[in-house]
């Protein structure tokens, strides 16, 4: 009886765990030159792109999987993975939504992302990436009218090669580290955004990543360029089916902000976290980096990390332009056996650069949650400032929270401020809320949402309510 209830609970807790029954087409398992050439051919890429991929692969051969993260990672056999999977009828990419397999549209509807424009969330343009391909991008034409390019990166490589060539790999070098280099060799799809000079993008842009095929890795590649004086707010969401195997999502995301430009990048990460015994779940090994290239530019990362068996990501800012600003707002929630090792790097190169880090880690069950961060002031980064706040909240007594903030200050005129707290939800707080009629889970979720408030309020309004619910759902079953 107990067992049945538990399974039901699990179903409730992760409601995106279904599989879409759709015929797919895969490139045979394995990592080699042939596979990379096939991926490139499938995407109809120009020669320079293939050469770029192959150069990355050449480099990868001599690189090793990083071992330093505070996580127990099962050995990944990179030859036993599919690197490309797409719905079968995608040989000729559908030109309009009418040509897209209804099953795919249905999938996104089930995930709460209607793709038909008349039904779509007003004010949000969506790029839907299913395994290795983008199935649809909404409001593309409308955005085009004002010069905003929002399309799958595979399409940008063909239609806007100059922009892609100029910026791809300019923030995350091909040789950065094992997973970043792997991504550069085999990346499949992701979004491309270009905001022209002095344009404030009138809509939220958003990409929805879905892993569906089994034994398949997803290698997202996203590139966002905000030209001088422009502004864009971008959001990504991620879900995957419930499976016993661990699946790999290794993304590279690069942001470039030129003079006076601002990019706001938000993530709601809800990959399948594995079951309550720690079986299955996504390995989310992600490299995200933004370059504040121009003066007075600003890049702001906001992330709500609730899914994945292991999360391993450090969305970072390189503050090269004078007076540029980097921000990192993070909520990372781990439950059951989840492991999260996340944080940021703020690299201050320019004068008068500012960065702000607000990290809220919540651990429950037997999970482990680490904040790892680096704030670096270059010798020339005069009068620069950083503020870091790392708060950890423990739910129960079997979980772990670690805070590893590193600082390197080579500038005499710059200043760092660091605050860190670790707390438990107090019995008095729970009792107070329950005395007023909230049950234990409602009370806990109210307190946790309060703890995360500073970060949650950074999200675009359309997603803030969803994120609050997600915070509550992720902790279900953790009340003692």
């Amino acid at each position, binding site marked *: 009886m107990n067992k049945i209830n538990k399974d039901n609970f699990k179903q409730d807790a992760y409601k995106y765990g279904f599989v879409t029954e759709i015929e797919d087409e895969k490139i045979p398992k394995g990592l080699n030159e042939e596979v990379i050439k096939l991926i490139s051919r499938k995407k109809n890429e120009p020669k320079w792109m293939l050469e770029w991929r192959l150069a990355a692969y050449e480099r990868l051969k001599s690189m090793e999987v990083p071992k330093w993260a505070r996580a127990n990672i099962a050995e990944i056999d990179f030859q036993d993975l599919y690197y490309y999977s797409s719905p079968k009828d995608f040989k000729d990419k559908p030109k309009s939504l009418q040509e897209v397999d209804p099953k795919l549209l249905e999938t996104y509807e089930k995930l709460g992302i209607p793709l038909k424009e008349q039904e779509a969330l007003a004010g949000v343009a969506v790029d839907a990436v299913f395994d290795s391909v983008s199935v649809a991008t909404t409001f593309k034409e409308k955005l085009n009218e004002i010069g905003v390019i929002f399309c799958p990166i595979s399409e940008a490589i063909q239609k806007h090669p100059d922009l892609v060539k100029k910026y791809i790999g300019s923030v995350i070098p091909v040789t950065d580290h094992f997973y970043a280099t792997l991504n550069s060799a085999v990346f499949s799809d992701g979004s491309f955004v270009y905001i022209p000079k002095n344009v404030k993008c009138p809509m939220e842009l958003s990409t929805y990543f879905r892993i569906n095929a089994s034994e398949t890795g997803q290698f997202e590649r996203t590139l966002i360029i905000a030209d001088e004086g422009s502004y864009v707010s971008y959001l990504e969401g991620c879900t995957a089916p419930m499976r016993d195997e661990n699946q790999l999502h290794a993304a590279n995301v690069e942001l470039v902000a030129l003079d006076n430009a601002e990019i706001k990048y938000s993530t709601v990460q809800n990959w399948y976290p594995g079951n309550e015994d720690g079986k299955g779940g996504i390995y989310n090994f992600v490299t995200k980096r933004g370059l504040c290239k121009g003066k007075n530019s600003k890049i702001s990362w906001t992330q709500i990390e609730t899914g994945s068996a292991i999360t391993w990501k450090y969305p970072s800012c390189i503050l090269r332009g004078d007076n540029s600003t980097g921000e990192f707002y993070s909520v990372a929630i781990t439950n059951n056996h989840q492991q999260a090792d996340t944080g940021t790097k703020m690299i201050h190169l320019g004068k008068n650069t500012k960065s702000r880090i607000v990290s809220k880690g919540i651990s429950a069950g037997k999970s482990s949650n680490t904040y790892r961060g680096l704030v670096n002031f270059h010798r020339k980064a005069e009068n620069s400032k950083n503020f870091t706040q790392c708060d950890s909240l423990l739910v129960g007594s079997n979980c772990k929270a670690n805070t590893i903030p590193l600082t390197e200050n080579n500038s005499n005129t710059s200043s760092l401020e660091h605050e860190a707290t670790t707390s438990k939800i107090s019995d008095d707080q729970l009792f*107070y809320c329950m005395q007023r009629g909230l049950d234990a889970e409602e*009370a806990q979720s109210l307190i946790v949402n309060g703890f995360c408030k500073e970060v949650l309020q950074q999200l675009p309004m359309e997603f803030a309510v969803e994120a609050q619910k997600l915070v509550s759902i992720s902790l279900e079953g953790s009340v003692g």
Partner: protein
Amino acid sequence: MLEIKNLDVSVEDKQIIKNLNLKIGPGEVHAIMGPNGSGKSTIAHTLAGKPNYLVEAGNVDFKNEDLIAKDPYERSLLGLFLAFQYPIELPGVTNASYLKQILNAHRKSRGENPIDAGEFLKILKEKSRNLNIPMEMHSRFVNAGFSGGEKKKNEVLQMDLLNPSLIIMDETDSGLDVDALKSTSEAVNKLRDGKRSFLIITHYLRLLEYIEPDHVHVFGDGSIIESGDKSLASRIDNEGYEVK
């Protein structure tokens, strides 16, 4: 309304309440007075279901239900309200959203829909005005950085909002100056409607000068040692707890 029979309660293996008996009828206002450290607050916490307050013997009947068998939130939904001596802070949770959420929890248990945002604001404005609470307080975090008076007013506001049938006030007068005591008491008196019952736990007479009780009980050594009308409170105030 409430009937406590032969109640024994221990906290962390120490027996605090011994064979307590008390009956409160609808509309009645009872006061329990006792010296500091006598454990009179334990009665309040036990009735509200605070964890670690272990009922070893006896039972409590509230509106014909076995109160002790219920979770704290069920007791609240059933109409029991405990005004805390030290209201708890909830950082990051704005008072307005908190008030709305607890109101909706009670509405849900009555089978009603969540309250409409406009209607809630109207009710909040009206009830806040009665208590001289500035609306600005509702955009602050629950009890965080509130003065003693603001905290107590916020408790009374919640009483008013949730419409309980039994209100237990645990040392509500502590930390209040004369003016705050007076205005808080006036607000509580407005909630006396002849049906709602009160259990007021206090050390001093002064609160009872504003909220006049029908019955006064003196608590000592884990139980009620003397009961009477409000004149008992004055006598205690003159003679102290030691004299019987």
